[in-house]
């Protein structure tokens, strides 16, 4: 796919870092503020789509690699399943870290409060796992479709 004009590329250079940081903020604060793994991963995936539209699929092969993204996707799904099986002493998907005093184990203040990052038990780890899986899944889908559009256009012209 041909790359777009200079205006679009300048605005993309200025903006895409902030979009990616906002997506990781939504993932990391999923147990305190609205959002979670799926929403934050979708925001980071839309930043990847912006890069692919403005730079074209050939030029963005340098910073978006399909092998690394699919590796992250499998890693996220395996981490999620392992966290689900870890609570199997009581039930499947039991929250074995909550209110235990260890990692993410502080008890939350009951009522309306500004929030503490060190609470939530296994929920922040599951947020990170699902967010990693969703962002690399959307990245792989968008990258594969952009390469396929480029390929069909080149084939019709020749």
């Amino acid at each position: 796919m041909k790359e777009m004009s200079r205006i679009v590329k300048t605005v993309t250079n200025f903006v895409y870092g902030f979009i990616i940081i906002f997506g990781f903020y939504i993932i990391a604060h999923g147990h305190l503020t609205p959002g979670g793994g799926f929403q934050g991963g979708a925001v980071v995936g839309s930043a990847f789509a912006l890069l692919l539209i403005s730079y074209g699929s050939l030029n963005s092969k340098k910073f978006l690699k399909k092998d690394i993204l699919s590796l992250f996707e499998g890693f996220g799904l395996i981490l999620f399943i392992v966290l689900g099986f870890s609570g199997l002493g009581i039930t499947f998907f039991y929250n074995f870290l909550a209110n235990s005093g260890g990692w993410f184990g502080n008890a939350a203040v009951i009522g309306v409060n500004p929030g503490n990052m060190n609470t939530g038990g296994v929920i922040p780890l599951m947020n990170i796992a699902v967010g990693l899986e969703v962002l690399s899944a959307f990245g792989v889908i968008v990258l594969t479709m952009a390469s396929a559009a480029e390929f069909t256009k080149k084939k019709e012209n020749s």
Partner: protein
Amino acid sequence: MSSFVEIIHISTLIMMIIAGFLAVIFKKLLPSIIALTVASLLLSLEFYILHAPDVAIAEAAIGAGLTMAIFIFAIRGTR
């Protein structure tokens, strides 16, 4: 207070219907996709007014970002 929220509800829904109608009747493909994106973004605003910010974030990222990207890839590939 209540009447103000209802005015925002009704105007958002009317603009959504207008944007969906424009997405059907446009002849060119790129303005039609942009009208569909405007309808999806107004749906995200409606979810936010109805006190569902989770669904609003997901709708704004997927319906307005990734769907438009995939449609633009399809247009560039077939032109």
